[in-house]
């Protein structure tokens, strides 16, 4: 290893120890295991900086943090799945003795033997790890795809197609009392009648033209062409809004992390 890397490693290790001690002393009055408490906060701060180091360039610290995360998250999901669903839902229906061992209320039922099927399918899914018997995994995969396809088919049809069509039945003339009334108190106020009418026109035209833009059975010429151009303009405003919201969201994540570094680690703010 080149000399410079050794120096960098030593510096980082020294910084780690230093901030650990500083943090522990400040925690001394609050927690009784302040040394461990200090270590935990310093280690998570060290991991935060290791990930942020990717901004400078891809480096061993980032790779270390990245690989550590991949390992821990896989095991986390396995443990949670095992305790909450296997022990919580499957074992109470399969065996009384195991239920007592895990102290989970046994659920007697005449059809309980049926619950061996998902266990068998589950084991077949694990066969995918072996290259020779990999095709066994297709049975549970088929069950998963069947469940998803069946459930989504009807629910997307109801909530994302049928409900959305009826939700677009908006009146184009909002609480209309004749043309004179419309012009007499015409205003651009946010809660005014004119803005509401324009809003409904935009929703009506936006949905129709948006659908026309994604219509592929007719050439986009003439009236259809103008409608699809209006459609793409409305879609551009939509993407502009998503752009704004996404930028907001990403900034909040950074604010959260820097608050952690300044408050919990360095104690600069209360």
């Amino acid at each position, binding site marked *: 290893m080149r000399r410079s890397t050794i120096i960098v490693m030593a510096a980082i290790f020294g910084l780690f120890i230093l901030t650990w001690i500083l943090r522990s002393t400040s925690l001394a009055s609050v927690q009784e295991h302040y040394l461990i408490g200090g270590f935990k906060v310093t280690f998570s701060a060290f991991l935060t900086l290791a990930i942020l180091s*990717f901004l400078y360039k891809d480096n061993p610290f980032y790779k270390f943090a990245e690989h550590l995360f991949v390992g821990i998250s896989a095991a986390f999901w396995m443990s949670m799945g095992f305790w909450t669903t296997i022990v919580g839902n499957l074992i109470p229906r399969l065996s009384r003795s195991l239920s007592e061992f895990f102290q989970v209320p046994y659920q007697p039922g005449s059809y309980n033997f049926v619950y061996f099927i998902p266990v068998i399918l589950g084991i077949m899914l694990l066969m995918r790890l072996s290259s020779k018997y990999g095709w066994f995994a297709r049975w549970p995969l088929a069950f998963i795809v069947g469940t998803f396809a069946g459930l989504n088919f009807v629910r997307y049809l109801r909530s994302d197609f049928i409900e959305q069509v009826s939700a677009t*039945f908006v*009146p184009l003339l909002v609480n209309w009392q004749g043309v004179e009334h419309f012009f007499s108190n015409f205003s651009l106020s946010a809660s005014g009648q004119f803005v509401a009418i324009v809003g409904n026109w935009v929703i009506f035209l936006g949905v*129709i033209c948006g659908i026309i833009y994604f*219509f*592929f*059975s007719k050439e986009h010429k003439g009236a259809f062409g103008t409608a699809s151009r209006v459609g793409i303009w409305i879609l551009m405003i939509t*993407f502009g809004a998503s*752009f704004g919201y*996404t930028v907001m969201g990403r900034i909040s994540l950074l604010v959260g992390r820097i608050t952690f570094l300044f408050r919990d680690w360095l104690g600069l703010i209360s």
Partner: protein
Amino acid sequence: MLSFPVTGQVIDTVKAVPDSELVVVAPVTSLIAADHKYDDGKMIDLSWVPSIDDRLVEGNVMGYKVYRIEGDSEPETIAELAPGSNAYNDQSVERGKLYSYFVSALSSNAETPSIRTAPIQPQREWLNIELINVLIMALVLGGAVIYFIETARRGKKLFVRKIAGLEAVDDAIGRATEMGRPILFIPGILDMDDVQTLAALTILGRITRVIADYDTKIFMPVSRSLVMTAGRETIKASYQAAGRPDAYSDDMVTYITDEQFGYVAAVDGIMVRERPATVFLLGAFFAESLILAETGNSVGAIQIAGTARPAQLPFFIAACDFTLIGEELFAASAYLSGEPKQMGSLKGQDVGKAIAMAAILIGVLTATIGEAWNVEWIQHITTGLRDIFSTR
């Protein structure tokens, strides 16, 4: 009406209080027990008018107790509800048994039972009539998709309009061949089970079919091993179709890593080193779309993007020269491959869009006229249409 604590029912709340201090509240009225429509016969709905003494201001009704009598056994409490409630659905009933109910209004120290309902038996209904409109829509749309897939299978040519994106693809390829600089193709970071990756590979087939006649180099870094094998097969097939099998080499497609940001860092390196004239970003992208589009911009490449994930579209549109938006990616793949199941779906979905547009046009017109000029019969059409297109 003098109220008596219900005989045979020990009410723990009642202490030995002389009658005069009993707080008497009016009973619940017009209690109705009805079988819950369109269920498996496992639910009975109770509804009633709350007691008159149940007022928000100094009302002395403390709540309600629901009693159920199964056949002719003892009444048992099945629910205690907050003041002001006027309905409850009993979900623990079984088919074939007779149940009757009564609801008593609770005061601080007494209970006034209501009249008992006639015994009722929960019924099972075989078809949920309320969802008929969803069933019909499912048959219409499903039928359309299957019909078009079958006609496409029988070789009938289905019309799909020209996709503007494909012209942009051809221009971008032309630019690369003129400048004699390579093309970079990035198929997104998901695996072969994602529809967007499949659509990207179809377009890849078309691109390599065009560049096979020239000596333009193509690089395709991937983050999934299955996509690597499928990519190599697609490019090899294109070069063979162009009659130049020797020009193809396996290292046009290289596997980098499965990890999102590791893959992005490597692809950035390739962009900066090879300085491609054209970059294609087609498939499923997540947060890494930003870095790729930015680096592509910095090396001065023409960038064509395409994804169906709404969250990434704004960045591609703002950073790339042309973007295939959502379904256009699938339409381009169907247009190029002419494959029956893709063409069939595309046309079937167009039928759904036509239905939606027609319904919205009629619905909005009738809603506007009906509401603005208060025309009775037009309002009926709107409500009728709303019932067809809603289940709430």
